[in-house]
């Protein structure tokens, strides 16, 4: 029976080993997990070794070799979830289920698991339950949800509120997720008419003209790294390769970011139009939207949009009536791994492998997906392109500041009255945004997510732009009631420990060592030496291979820079060295085992 199903799934993907992610996702959605016994048949079916299949499975958070319950609750453990009461909710889940997080109830009914930020920071605590998103979970709701599960109700019947605003309520989505578009600007405002730019304008332009217009706009990547988009496209266009590919990076894994989720819900046509324009510009025929697993609830809706675009000649043979431009887009799902947002890891993952970043050079524009020249762009970047072609590069450059042109969509969350997304021209100060969001008594702001910087009031007059405070969009606000070190820095550091792919020694080890240092300092055993160690060790992270490793010490390093007094207050000033080792505790277990009373 199962064997048959597997063969069908393998056939569906032409027994192509580069589609291993899709194969595993299908099997898991069919069976609920990937039984160990299937690994060999899968491997045989696609001409891989069992070890290859296993290493892909083991890399991703949402793949599992063991059943995780008929109902699986993945409760977000990001910082904002904790700020909004996650701990109490988690406790109720555990009490009602009679098992701990990381376990499944004895009857196999309910599994409780942690998961990193699921892109709902403006409506925490939130959880993924069998792929459906539950937001604003209270202890009361947690009890209800478990009761419903024990009664065997369907997950979609467990919602206790109306569907979310905007397209969230549309028949193909039907989610309680809210968009909270607090402010739209020149890119995301209502004036967008799907397909107009592509059909009426791009169709009249040469690829070179398209690239020139994007270059003229000075648009830089909105995914965090800020690489000039026009230049990236030009490199890819010039690179030699039989085929070329456009990827949209919708992995959105940086804790506190959720703007791409809102764009994907409200403006998917615009995003696909941007991908098509990119495809035309670089000479690609295939676009791939790499969508994080957490946004699976958008799958049917987005596929429907793609179908509609195909019918309207905005995709498919001779797209936009451009002869020979047969462009199409498919969706590639991830399976839970922050590092897959890194462009070369994203490509590896799309090829069915572990999401380990590649060594560069060669860059993806030369050798990317299946070794063909590939452009990877963020959701917001590609949407901006549509407006740039529509209104001209000069118009776009008139927005924002001299060297940071255009707008940026921020995901604002944490201690403020109006969490949500804000499209702003570059050049706003941190104070402006705090005021806009109704934040009071602000102690600190995390700009750019854990990989960015933690800043205090002294820096609130600084400007958001590439030359001062660059950001991929995450903006988390902490008020004076928050414990920066114990809660914020610790949570972020643990996030990086969990998400490192493990290839580079510093990235694999130093964050854990920093966490130990932090614990030691918080327990009152810290000394000046611990602070200098943190700084020296943190700086070693620059030798890692990818951006994750380069930034994984940032929570500790930037809090040390901007909140040094918090560290200084907790260390022992007159002690030169403190091991922090409690000998009695260290020998307790071994002495108990050999039946001996510890004596010192």
């Amino acid at each position: 029976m199962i064997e048959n199903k597997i063969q069908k799934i393998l056939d569906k993907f032409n027994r192509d080993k580069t589609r291993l992610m899709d194969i595993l996702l299908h099997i898991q959605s069919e069976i609920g997990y990937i039984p160990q016994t299937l690994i060999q048949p899968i491997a045989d079916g696609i001409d891989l070794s069992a070890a290859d299949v296993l290493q892909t499975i083991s890399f991703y958070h949402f793949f599992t070799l063991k059943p995780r319950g008929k109902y699986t609750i993945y409760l977000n453990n990001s910082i904002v979830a904790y700020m909004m009461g996650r701990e109490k909710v988690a406790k109720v889940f555990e009490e009602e289920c009679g098992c701990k997080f990381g376990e499944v109830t004895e009857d196999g009914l309910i599994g409780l698991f942690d998961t990193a930020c699921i892109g709902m920071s403006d409506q925490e605590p939130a959880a993924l339950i069998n792929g459906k998103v539950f937001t604003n979970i209270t202890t009361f709701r947690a009890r209800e949800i478990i009761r419903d599960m024990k009664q065997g109700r369907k997950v979609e019947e467990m919602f206790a509120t109306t569907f979310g605003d905007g397209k969230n309520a549309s028949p193909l989505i039907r989610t309680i997720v809210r968009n909270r578009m607090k402010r739209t600007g020149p890119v995301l405002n209502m004036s967008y008419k799907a397909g107009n730019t592509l059909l009426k304008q791009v169709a009249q332009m040469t690829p070179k003209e398209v690239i020139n217009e994007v270059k003229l706009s000075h648009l830089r990547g909105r995914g965090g790294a800020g690489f000039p988009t026009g230049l990236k496209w030009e490199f890819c266009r010039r690179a030699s390769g039989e085929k070329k590919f456009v990827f949209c990076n919708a992995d959105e894994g940086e804790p506190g970011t959720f703007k791409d989720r809102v764009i994907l819900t409200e403006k998917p046509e615009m995003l696909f139009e941007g991908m098509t324009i990119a495809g035309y510009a670089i000479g690609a025929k295939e676009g791939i939207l790499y969508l994080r697993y957490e946004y699976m609830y958008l799958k049917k809706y987005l596929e429907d949009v793609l179908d509609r675009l195909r019918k309207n000649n905005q995709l498919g043979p001779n797209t936009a009536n451009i002869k020979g431009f047969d462009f199409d887009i498919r969706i590639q799902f991830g399976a839970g791994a922050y590092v897959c947002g890194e462009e070369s890891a994203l490509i590896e993952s799309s090829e069915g492998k572990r999401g380990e970043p590649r060594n560069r050079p060669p860059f993806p524009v030369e050798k990317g997906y299946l070794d063909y020249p590939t452009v990877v762009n963020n959701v917001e970047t590609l949407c901006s392109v549509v407006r740039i072609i529509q209104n001209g590069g000069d118009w776009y450059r008139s927005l924002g500041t001299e060297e940071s042109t255009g707008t940026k969509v921020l995901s604002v969350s944490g201690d403020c009255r109006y969490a949500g997304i804000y499209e702003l021209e570059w050049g706003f100060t941190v104070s402006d945004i705090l005021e806009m969001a109704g934040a009071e008594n602000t102690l600190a702001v995390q700009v750019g997510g854990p990989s960015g910087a933690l800043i205090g009031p002294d820096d609130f007059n600084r400007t958001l732009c590439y030359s001062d405070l660059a950001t991929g969009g995450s903006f988390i606000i902490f008020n004076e009631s928050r414990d920066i070190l114990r809660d914020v820095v610790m949570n972020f550091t643990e996030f990086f420990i969990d998400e490192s792919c493990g290839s580079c020694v510093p990235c694999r080890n130093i964050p854990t060592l920093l966490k130990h240092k932090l614990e030691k300092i918080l327990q009152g055993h810290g000394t000046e030496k611990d602070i200098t160690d943190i700084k020296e060790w943190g700086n070693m992270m620059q030798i890692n291979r990818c951006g994750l490793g380069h930034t994984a010490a940032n929570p500790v390093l930037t809090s040390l820079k901007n909140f040094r007094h918090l560290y200084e207050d907790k260390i022992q000033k007159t002690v030169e060295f403190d091991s922090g080792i409690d000998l009695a505790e260290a020998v307790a277990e071994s002495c108990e085992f050999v039946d001996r009373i510890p004596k010192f």
Partner: protein
Amino acid sequence: MSKPIIATTSLAGCFGCHMSFLDIDDRLLDLIELVEFNKSPINDIKNFTNVCDIGLIEGGCCNTENIHILKEFRKNCKILISFGECAIMGGLPAMRNDVPVRECLEEAYLSGPSTVNEERILPNDEELPMILNRVYPCHEVVKMDYHLPGCPPNADLIWDVLHALILDVNIELPYEVIKYD
């Protein structure tokens, strides 16, 4: 002026670092012209009889005796050097750090495939050191001044370091000497 004094010890190590020390070969003769040895397995002096200038520590700390000795060294040596991977990071012995100590003891004394212990005797004599929950690198137990990498550190490196410390001259550390990958 009296000669600088050196002490050495092997904690949770395999003595490989000391073997590498002996590999400085004929330079040993130069060394004993330059320094005097105090507590060390090399001369079998068991207790400190003098304040030392340099202490070389091989191995990390896996039991209470290791900790005691390391603290003694800290008290009696002006400069303390983590000598080899085990001292610096815990090394091979630290591979047990991810396994609960209970399971390690169980396997070592009761259930291991090569274990014959019908009476199920466990080492619990008061004279024995107590086993720590994990193996600690030296710098987590006391302040260490220098780290000499390698498993074991290369004899030339050991010589160069001692030479530089004793004569108070600068040391050349070419990349190859400290890169182990």
